[in-house]
């Protein structure tokens, strides 16, 4: 049976399939595995950041620091690999530790100081961006043979598509996100927070631990997205990925997650990412359209999905059934 809560997810998937069919009917070449593989590779970092953002939005919060944290991670890796002889793997662990504790610190502020997430993560956004500038204002290239090894890892599908390591990592992140959201107590507590803070407290949800965990997850995944982004561009640049947090929020909302929190799916975000990537691919294929059309289409889609969510909320309240139907025959 289809449940009303699944409806936004189904609509997102249907939107994606419809869009893909339309694109493919116009440009049959888009049906190739190469396009699909590139869709994954090009959006890997955004997808990973969006998984973290999904958790944040499900809990009723927002994380504006994501784009800055990605840029900081890139610059940090580039500088540390240029100036020291640390192995990239060690550098990865180091930078993840930094971004996770950064996120956890924001979560702690949000919880203990009872500050709105918007303002705390806005401060985090400036801090991380500023820290990136302090490390270097130039674009620092990354030249390490380990990077070359990682970049050359791919699985060549029939049809010439190259499924690179970064794309695979994004898929694994989504998989892990889905499992955490639905199969762990942490995931359930995230939904509970989104349903209502005071009610969640009354029902015994550990608010501090959950809030800090959510923002630490988002910070950590932004760090991972930064690593992927540095693999993608082979450089670290403090001006990179400005506004990526907004793209991530858009992907989450297009994926059917309610901005007010409590309702949505990590899987939906995946399709949100694919829809956004698809629009971009279409514009590349077309060649005559300005790339700003991406923004216009995404804006339109967002409006559409906001209206849809409102409509569904009304529909579920209207559909509410009278009590007496459910009394078991005794």
């Amino acid at each position, binding site marked *: 049976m289809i449940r009303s809560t699944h409806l936004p997810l189904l609509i997102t998937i249907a939107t994606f399939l419809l869009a893909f069919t339309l694109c493919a009917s116009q440009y049959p070449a888009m049906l190739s595995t190469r396009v699909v593989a590139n869709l994954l590779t090009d959006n890997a970092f955004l997808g990973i950041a969006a998984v973290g953002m999904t958790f944040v939005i499900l809990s009723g919060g927002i994380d504006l620091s994501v784009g800055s944290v990605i840029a900081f991670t890139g610059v940090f890796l580039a500088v540390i690999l240029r100036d020291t002889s640390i192995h990239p793997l060690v550098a990865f662990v180091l930078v993840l530790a930094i971004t996770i504790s950064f996120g956890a610190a924001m979560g702690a502020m949000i919880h203990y100081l009872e500050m709105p997430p918007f303002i705390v993560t806005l401060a985090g956004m400036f801090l991380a961006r500023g820290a990136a500038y302090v490390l270097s204002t130039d674009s620092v290239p990354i030249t390490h043979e380990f990077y070359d090894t990682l970049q050359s890892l791919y699985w060549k599908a029939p049809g010439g598509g190259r499924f690179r390591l970064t794309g695979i990592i994004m898929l694994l992140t989504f998989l892990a996100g889905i499992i955490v959201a639905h199969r762990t107590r942490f995931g359930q507590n995230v939904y509970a927070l989104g349903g209502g803070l005071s*009610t969640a407290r009354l029902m015994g949800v550990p608010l501090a631990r959950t809030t800090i965990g959510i923002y630490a997850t988002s910070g950590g995944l932004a760090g991972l997205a930064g690593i992927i982004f540095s693999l993608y561009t082979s450089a670290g640049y403090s001006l990179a990925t400005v506004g990526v947090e907004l793209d991530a929020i858009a992907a989450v909302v297009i994926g059917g997650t309610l901005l007010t929190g409590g309702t949505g799916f990590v899987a939906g975000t995946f399709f949100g990412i694919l829809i956004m990537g698809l629009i971009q691919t279409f514009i590349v294929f077309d060649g005559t359209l300005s790339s700003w059309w991406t923004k216009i289409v995404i804006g339109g889609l967002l409006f559409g999905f906001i209206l849809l969510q409102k409509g569904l909320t009304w529909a579920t309240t209207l559909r509410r059934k009278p*009590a007496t139907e459910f009394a078991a025959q005794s």
Partner: protein
Amino acid sequence: MASVTDPVLECRGISKFFPGAIALDAVDLTLYPGEVHALLGENGAGKSTLIKCLTGAYRRDAGTIVLNNQEISPNSTQDSQKLGIGTVYQEVNLLPNLTVAENLFLGRQPMWHGFISQRKMMTMARDLLAEFGLSVNPAEPLSAYSVAVQQVVAIARAVELSGKVLILDEPTASLDRDEVDLIFSVIEKLKARGLAIVFITHFLDQVFEISDRATVLRNGRVVGTRRLADASQTEIVTLMLGRQLEDRIHDRAPPAIGDTLIELTNFGKRGMITPFDLTVRKGEVVGLAGLLGSGRTETAEIIFGAVQADQGDARLEGKKISIRNPREAVTHRFALCPEDRKSDGIVGDLSVRENIILALQARQGWFRPLPKAKVNELAEAYVKALDIRLASLDMPIRLLSGGNQQKALLARWLATNPAFLILDEPTRGIDVGAHAEIIALIEKLREDGMALLVASSELEELVAYSTRVIVLRDRRQVSELTGDDITTSNIVAAIADEPMAEAV
């Protein structure tokens, strides 16, 4: 039978002090297994304070709580839940976005290899709800179900988590009769299981229907505990209201009753107030009596259009009118002084003067400002007429005392020169002196030929100024008293729904 077994919970001498007030004064409460114990009292009697002391939301200042022969001092609702005291509130404290099963098992989900086993959780939820006589799909979100079903789910969760004492704080307040039956069937099942259940409600019929005993609180004290099988509703209502039921003789000029002003027929709204007929004539004060939640405020609001009626006709001096919103009511020269003046009445930061002319200006339309001189003249006239004590007309109204705020609010509506004035609890929270002045004012307005409808919980006050009293109960009009029948004891009898005492 109940007295043979040991009590589950015994409270002795519970006291709670707030700055400047004693909320609970040495309250005793004993609960036996398998009994439904009603906790009764008007607003401010201390019911919710007592519950909060029991559940650990408040720290008690004195007294002991003994649960199963062990003294306890819970310091949070979590804590009391673990000890065995569960609570369900009128507002369902569950998460509407989660599924029924997730709500039942949040924080204690069945695990399988470190992950939540959804399948196991669904089966467990289905079994649990079946015990409560509910066959819903536990995989549906809670919001898909009505409040009554949600309420049962909340009860199921509370019982699972606690299992000794269940406190139901007005669980039926927003339910239809069928839904109340569903809740009651659940209560009966829990009673059979041997739980002690505390039932708080304003509906007396429901108390007598389901409860075994009742403890009545008044002003923070227990005024009596009765076995309901041996008690009458009159006895309980008398305990609750606690009036010295000596009837005052009203010595006032016989009302010079004029023509019919308002005529309402079959006026009502589903789920709020049962349709009623009401006629109010000029120079008449119609009192609305009834317990809290009996529909007094609802009646006042529906006549003023603050809540839109879904059936019935209204006639003003014989002409059919519509009252769909307060603006329309104001154009018919109606006025309403609401019960909660803090949230519905005064605009705290505006000056006394602005508060007084607010309604008149609103009726005029905002683009035709009243001339300054006229504003001053009006405001000064009413301040003098109603004896509002203030330092200056420019001071923010929130700085005035409760009684003076009430009078300023009255002035606001009197300034519009209303034909029909509705007052909801005109004397709540004001001191004795102001109290008498407001009553005198009501008398004077009546003598001047205004039609008034006054809802009040102060019976003596109603007796003092009403020319007619309508008694409400469970959101419908049950009785009408006129002339010499207007006595506090007759009102109490009508509230308790028993044959009226002989008029003295």
